[in-house]
């Protein structure tokens, strides 16, 4: 089944694809990533972090949801990868030390923010060239056809020449890759409509790949992850909203949407206790703050 929703116009349907326990797990992951990134921002602004940082603030829902329903053997993300690292259970101490440029970091301080990786969760670091993780992910899937692979990139990378051919190769060979585009409509600050008049999901449908274009609502993501993970390769274009700059911690105006707040509201409407959700949010803030303080004090 191939479905395209117009994320700008269509109401997000109720899919009942998430039970209460899973919903809380997703909410916790969103909150933790948000809290972690806030700490990164703080340390970047105080110059404790001296490398460029690519923050996931506003874009936490995709990784939080995908990691709850899909257990890949290998994960190839792009430069904005903190959220995947954290949601899939990467070592928290090592990502902090990596951002602080320490030898005890996940790449001994050599990969920085775009390169975060943890081989224990199968996550391969990104070197910073957008989209090159796509052929690498496809190559890993052809190298070991027993492994399930998650490949994440952005709407800018979707325009790189080699993306489509690599995905088409995966389609030809029926490789087990779930491709996810975190589409924040921005290449640094250039909007998508300025750059192109086509959607990658349409192009992939044309070659027979299951593909969908949806907002980053956890219920919708869950629905398609659960459906697509049994018919890989497949593609999810996930419309999201980056709150901060492409690189660094700056902000241009009020974000169009805050998925954390939206999801929290949705959970309350569906019967979750607002007190409990607030407690989770506060607790995650506390956890991230404690983690960062502990590492910064070692300096």
């Amino acid at each position, binding site marked *: 089944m191939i479905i395209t929703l117009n994320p700008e116009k269509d109401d997000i349907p109720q899919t009942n694809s998430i039970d209460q326990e899973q919903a809380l797990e997703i909410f916790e992951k969103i909150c933790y990533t948000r809290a972690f990134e806030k700490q990164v921002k703080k340390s970047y602004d105080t110059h404790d972090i001296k490398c460029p940082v690519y923050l996931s603030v506003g874009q936490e829902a995709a990784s939080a949801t995908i990691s709850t329903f899909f257990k890949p053997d290998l994960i190839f993300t792009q430069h904005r990868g903190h959220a995947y690292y954290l949601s899939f259970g990467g070592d928290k101490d090592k990502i902090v030390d990596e951002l602080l440029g320490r030898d005890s970091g996940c*790449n001994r301080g050599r990969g920085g923010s775009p390169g975060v990786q943890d081989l224990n969760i199968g996550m391969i670091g990104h*070197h910073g060239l957008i989209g090159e993780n796509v052929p690498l992910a496809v190559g890993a899937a052809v190298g070991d056809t027993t492994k399930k692979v998650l490949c994440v990139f952005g709407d800018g990378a979707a325009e790189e*020449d080699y993306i489509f051919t690599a995905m088409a190769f995966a389609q030809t060979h029926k490789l087990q890759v779930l491709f996810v585009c975190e589409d924040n409509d921005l290449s640094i600050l250039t909007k998508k409509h300025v750059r192109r008049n086509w959607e990658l999901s349409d192009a992939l449908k044309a070659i027979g790949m299951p593909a969908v274009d949806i907002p980053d609502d956890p219920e919708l993501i869950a629905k398609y992850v659960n459906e697509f993970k049994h018919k890989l390769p497949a593609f999810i274009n996930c419309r999201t909203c980056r709150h901060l700059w492409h690189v660094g911690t700056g902000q241009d105006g009020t974000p169009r949407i805050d998925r954390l707040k939206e999801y929290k509201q949705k959970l309350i409407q569906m019967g979750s206790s607002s007190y409990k959700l607030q407690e989770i949010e506060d607790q995650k803030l506390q956890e991230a703050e404690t983690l960062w303080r502990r590492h910064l004090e070692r300096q």
Partner: protein
Amino acid sequence: MAQTLGETIKEITRKHLEENNGIILGQCLSAVGWVNNTVPDTKNIIELPMTDVAGAGIAAGAAITGRRPIFVIRFQDFMFLNSSTLVNYAAKAKQIFNVNVPVFIRALATEGNGTGPVHSGVLHGIFMHMPGFKVCSPMTPGEYKEVWSEFMKSDGPMYVSEHRKSFNQIEEIPDITTTDAEITIYGISTSRFSIVQAIEMLKNEGIKCNFVNILWLKPLKLTERMTEPLLKTGMGLIVDTDFEIAGASQSIAYELMKKTKKYVEALGAMDKSVGTAKRYENGTPSPEKIVAKVKELIEIRKQSNTQ
């Protein structure tokens, strides 16, 4: 019966695909002569579509899973499209991410017969320039076996600069050291075949030369085999099939000079594009060209000694 280099490549590949769970990737492998009959008809062959950029990434991705891929580039000029993931990820992954990405890059060359501007290049020098690659140019069956054995122990990509002119080679190419030699000539890639002929021509004119084969361009090991003949002759010439300017020949000449304090010049392909007509070819320096260069160097030394 003794094997040719082409047959050796095919046998190594067959063993890798059938016994090591190895993999070979490339365009048009299983047709048009199976890459000059160097690819066996067996399992684990991945035919890539015309994905000259993504293809290298797919090969590197397969390497991450431990398949030790052989990645075939039928003409070295195609490396410009194919090199991004190899240079930027495969070659850097060990140092940055502690991830092994061993890809055996069979970069084939040819020359002459109107092969023209984008099918006749030899480009190993560019890969010497980039960190993380091992670079070699095997021209004999024994050398290819050595190179393969080294690859199987390697954690990163290896650029194997092949040339179709060598595929029928059966014999090893020995170094030559002669007493009273006037110059030491070093050879890379197919220039080694030209040098062997040039040395015979020079011998007939009473000029004796040493000859040293260079298989490994990077890492370059300046062993006694490399330096001793030069120390004796006091002058050297490096001949390469790749471009001379900023290439392997100039780079190795500099390294040898630094090590021995003896004068070494470089001779490689000229700094010009190749046209299809014969008069626009720019291939391996010919024996005649090498002879002329050697005589020129000897003359320069003679004059400077008399001054």
